[in-house]
């Protein structure tokens, strides 16, 4: 008989919103080994370039992931625009920025909710989702989609939003900021929450860098890297600094994401106040030729959309490297020696988006 407990964790598991599988080897409740199996969501859409032209592919990019749908399509469009040297009108760039930040708000609130759920704090989960629902409403008002917005296109965006509507959005987002403060207090101050987060899954600065972490995972370990500082879309025109925490544990990651909520509120306001007038899209002609790695900062970190065209309607290669893909090695490292009860917390701490990862 075994001297250890071996249990399958997933692919279907109530704490996993998405299917991954871990062979957990336990001694009492201590995880001594966690071997992952992924690929349950693998569809293989990168190969769709052979069947869909570069414009149609925006619909696919929009559906890579339901959480960062907009940023995916934006990163794809930026890639194609770079290859084709399309200049996007500034108003479209600002709208992209606003929507990106609202998507980040929605994603972080979703993450907070799921995290609360993972450590068994149901009412906190409900409250996070209650607030998130208001963000989703705003997105729906502006774009027509709750989850998958479908407003980005090569050369701009499909819809304009009147300035007074934007002002209204800014007011409402700021109001939400007050509610988010109350939420943040619980996440950052509550003792039972701290018990579940502080010191769990610690990655020191060097480890995080070595493991190739991106996004809040990296910033929570004290590395100030945020792809938005590249200044894509309208990020060059707004004022912000990457949010960094030092401790590198689950609590620090939570803190980074919570602080980013307020940062996003601020960025939405800044972008809305600076937004210029004019068109929201240009007509694009010709076919892409050349290659470009388009990088954007998703709620989960840096995403890479690599597009390579050979001058036909069909791209030669389209490849997406999502932040979760970069964070999985860190997850494997963190799972060693944790408690069984920490497994869902650790899985969630990287804010996994398996759908993007496996494509």
């Amino acid at each position: 008989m075994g001297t250890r407990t071996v249990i399958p964790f997933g692919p279907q598991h109530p704490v996993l919103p998405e299917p991954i599988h871990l062979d957990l080897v336990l001694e009492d409740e201590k995880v001594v080994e966690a071997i992952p199996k992924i690929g349950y969501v693998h569809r293989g859409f990168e190969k769709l370039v052979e069947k869909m032209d570069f414009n149609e592919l925006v619909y696919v990019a929009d559906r890579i992931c339901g959480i960062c749908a907009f940023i995916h399509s934006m990163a794809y469009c930026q890639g194609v625009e770079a290859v084709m040297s399309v200049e996007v009108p500034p108003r479209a760039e600002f709208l992209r920025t606003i929507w990106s930040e609202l998507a980040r708000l929605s994603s972080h609130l979703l993450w907070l909710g799921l995290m609360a759920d993972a450590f068994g704090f149901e009412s906190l989960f409900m409250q996070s989702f209650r607030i998130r629902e208001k963000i989703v409403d705003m997105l729906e008002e502006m774009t027509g989609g709750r989850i998958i917005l479908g407003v980005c296109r090569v050369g701009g965006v499909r819809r304009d939003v009147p300035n007074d509507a934007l002002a209204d959005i800014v007011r409402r987002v700021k109001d939400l900021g007050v509610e988010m403060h109350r939420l943040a207090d619980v996440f950052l101050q509550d003792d039972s929450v701290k018990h579940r987060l502080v010191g769990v899954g610690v990655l020191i600065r060097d480890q995080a860098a070595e493991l190739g972490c991106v996004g809040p995972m990296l910033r929570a370990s004290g590395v100030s890297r945020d792809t938005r500082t590249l200044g894509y879309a309208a990020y060059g025109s707004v004022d912000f600094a990457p949010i960094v925490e030092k401790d590198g544990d689950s609590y620090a990651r939570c803190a980074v994401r919570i602080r980013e909520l307020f940062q996003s509120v601020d960025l939405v306001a800044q972008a809305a106040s600076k937004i210029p007038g004019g068109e929201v899209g240009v007509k694009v002609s010709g076919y892409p030729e050349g290659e470009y790695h388009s990088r954007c900062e998703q709620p989960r970190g840096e995403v890479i959309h690599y597009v390579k065209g050979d001058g036909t309607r069909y791209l030669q290669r389209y490849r997406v490297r999502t932040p979760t893909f970069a964070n999985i090695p860190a997850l494997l490292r963190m799972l060693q020696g944790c408690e069984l009860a920490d497994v869902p917390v650790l899985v969630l701490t990287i804010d996994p988006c398996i759908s993007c990862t496996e494509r």
Partner: protein
Amino acid sequence: MKAFAKSPWVLHYDASSCNGCDIEVVASLTPLYDVERLGVINTGNPKHADIFLVTGSVNAQNLMVLRNLYEQMPEPRVVAAVGICATSGCVFRECYNVMGGVDTVLPVDVYVPGCAARPESIIDGILQAVEILEKKHAYMKSMHGRMKEMTIGRATAVDAPEILALQKIVYQNEAEMYDDWSLAPLRQTLDDLRRDFETRVFIKAVVGGKIIGSVKGIMDGDTAHLSRLVVHPYFWKQGIGTRLVQEVEASFPKAKRFETFTGQKSRHTMEPYQRLGYLPIRQEKVSEHRDRVYFGRDREGA
């Protein structure tokens, strides 16, 4: 008494969805939509669930997962395909790793539209599923009472259409199991089956006027060859197969030996024989994924 209408418990599984529908499933549990108003609980456990909400499309890797989860749900159960991917595959339909909608592996009862499906549609889907649950339960109950009245007896050529229909249902399962759609029982025509009645003995199990199981046998020398033991999946693991085999054995009083064969993975077919003491004789390959295992036993005292 609409017991199911007031307490539909759901199981959610993300087959290969983009997350969009999953988030909306979760969102429908949360304050704005709060499906718990309607008694809905997201159980996360197939053993407790009534409604299986599947998002995303089917691929090679999650196919077995979906089957397992469905198999582990107690009757009555309903499958709801949530979102377009689960319905047809959406934009990913042409991807090399997408087999199609959920209905390629599971009997889907409700299709929920939307990309991503909106919480309102999901709730509507649950309410539709509830209706179906009630119907299935009514059917289950009517069958349950009648299990005791099950009769087993000789079938005649008149029963051929019903037996053929049953055979196709059962072998559909087999075909999926072996990924081999060329199985003879699936291709058999009605006339062909009718002709079998001239040479072979058919035994049928009848509940409430419906044939739910059958088996056939033919004498060859001292040996009776039994084959095509089929029981409607709903009635599996209730000993019906065993009773059918016993009955068909009894109809060959002169046989000294009984033989049969099944596919190497067909646990449901093997079980009744093994329980009656049939031992494997040999195994031979019939197609890439399918082996045929021959079983036999001598009659007691023979």
